[in-house]
């Protein structure tokens, strides 16, 4: 029982689930080398680069009791802006995309703190607006990015399983993780999420923290969008919009709770890796796409039930009823 409790504790669970996924896939593969290969590791990390930063952004917003729906719109919008402005100077496109993400996130944070609107409402408006904006900018078309060399550089394998894109993503994760665990700022963010009222009394500028987290969320998502569009050498308003479900799933798997105050960047990274390993791993061993959907759904459902606040109470009352009989 105590082992079970340790494994299901939020801080350890993401890594337990991750190892579970690796071991299961490894067993199914039975050493035929389809799953445990450098090629699979590379494709897992490429997927990780697309999903990781979005999931980190969403996860951080969840830590402060928000739910940044707008990440789904920002991912494609930042990509479109970067491709449109960075045709000759990639750095200019990157800067434009990142500035937009930072500005849009800050604006959303200002609106929700200034007018006291629940984050979900503001970011829903943001999601629809960003999506609309990327449709207007691209006139509903997929636009090609002429700088193919850049795409090749970004996705070229380094030591077999890494690439510049995944290195940047991993680097950002490391920086955010260090800030969250080793600075006062990180502790203030967690405090704001777990008890806003008490944190305010204790002298934390909770409004500033909220604005900062949403600004960072916009920035991280924009970075993911720009990297994705540059490495695909294309941007489209449509193709990238179904990122919200896997991003949320990964954050939740990573130990973030919707109640706020819980969740660590490294846990989120483990959550994202689990999803990516499930997807590429199942692909590598030749399973049909629906198996992946089932696996994601099943894992999420189990986590949702384990996380449910009344599970313990219901179980106890069942046990009592059973023993009375």
């Amino acid at each position, binding site marked *: 029982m105590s082992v079970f409790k340790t494994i299901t504790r939020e801080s350890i669970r993401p890594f337990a689930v991750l190892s579970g996924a690796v071991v299961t896939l490894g067993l199914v593969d039975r050493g035929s080398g389809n799953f445990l290969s450098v090629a699979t590791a590379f494709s897992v990390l490429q997927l990780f680069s697309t999903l990781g930063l979005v999931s980190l952004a969403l996860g951080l917003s969840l830590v402060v009791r928000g739910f940044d729906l707008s990440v789904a719109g920002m991912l494609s919008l930042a990509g479109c802006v970067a491709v449109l402005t960075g045709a000759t100077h990639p750095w200019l496109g990157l800067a434009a995309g990142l500035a937009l993400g930072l500005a849009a996130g800050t604006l959303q944070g200002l609106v929700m703190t200034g007018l006291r609107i629940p984050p979900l409402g503001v970011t829903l408006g*943001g999601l*629809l607006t960003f999506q609309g904006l990327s449709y207007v900018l691209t006139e509903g078309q997929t636009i090609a990015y002429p700088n193919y060399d850049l795409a090749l550089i970004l996705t070229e394998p380094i030591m077999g399983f890494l690439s510049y894109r995944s290195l940047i993503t991993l680097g950002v994760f490391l920086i955010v993780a260090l800030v969250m665990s080793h600075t006062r700022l990180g502790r203030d963010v967690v405090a704001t999420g777990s008890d806003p009222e008490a944190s305010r009394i204790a002298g934390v500028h909770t409004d500033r923290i909220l604005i900062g987290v949403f600004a960072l969320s916009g920035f991280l998502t924009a970075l993911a969008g720009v990297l994705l569009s540059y490495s695909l050498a294309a941007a489209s308003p449509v193709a990238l919009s179904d990122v919200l479900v896997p991003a949320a*799933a990964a954050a939740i798997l990573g130990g973030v709770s919707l109640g706020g105050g819980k969740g660590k960047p490294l846990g989120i990274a483990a959550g994202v890796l689990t999803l990516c390993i499930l997807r590429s791993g199942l692909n590598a061993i030749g399973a049909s796409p629906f*198996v992946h959907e089932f696996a994601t759904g099943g894992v999420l459902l189990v986590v949702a039930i384990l*996380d449910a606040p009344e599970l313990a109470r219901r179980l106890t009352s069942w046990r009592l009823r059973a023993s009375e009989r």
Partner: protein
Amino acid sequence: MLLILTVGALATPGFISTPSLAALLTSISFIGCVAVGMTFITLSGNIMSLCLGATLSASSLIFMAGLSFGVGPALALGLGFGTLFTAAQGLLVGYLRANPIIVSIAALALLVGSADYLTGGQRIYSPGDSLVPLTGTLWGMPVEALFLLASAVIGQIILSYTRFGRHIHMVGSNLKAARAAGVSIWRTVTGSYLLAGFFTALAGILLSARYGSGDMELGVGYDYDAIASVLVGGTAIHGGEGSVTRTLLGVAVISAIQVVLLLYGFSQQMQYLMTGLIVLTVIMLHSLGERHS
């Protein structure tokens, strides 16, 4: 706000002509039914479901597949599936207090997976023309619009005049107080989800009847359109406060704006952007209004 919109709409040449109004009414109806359903979830304090769009699609598939047994059984199968599948999510949310958003995401993934497994991503076509009664007009109104009207009336009656409706408001506005008052939380939440599933399945059946086929793409984006209508109508996102009539108003406002933009010759892309800005504006206005009152 409504006044400006009405004047703006009437001042637009072509708005009151019957074809565009009929087209508006029909397109409203599908989103409207889902939005009526979503209202129950939002009101009961569970924010939104990301699974209603997929439930709509799956109900349309099951309805189309069930047509080989006749229209009656197909209706029962389609409605029954949507209702029970969504009620099961409500049970998890209500009985265990599992997180509504995660449960809906998990249900979405499972549903998409099963549909993919069963249909292989194919579309299912209607076998004959037995569905004509569901797509025609009655008393000059598209049948779909009548269904929406009926759903809204039934929904509002449940909310305003039944004990269950009062319980939804209580659970949504203050869970602990509702429990202290002896309200069964899990029954109320499961009931809210059950109704949401029913109205969503209805939209799926109407939509597939209109197109003569069902597939998993039908409901894509309906979750966001529905929650946008609910919020623009003024139902509070944290639950407890709102109504089906308000949601209906929200649907009407969003759709009317889109038609006006279309008539003035704005592109489809511009409409997306305007919808987003309007949702954002209305949400901000509502919160300002709430603070003044």
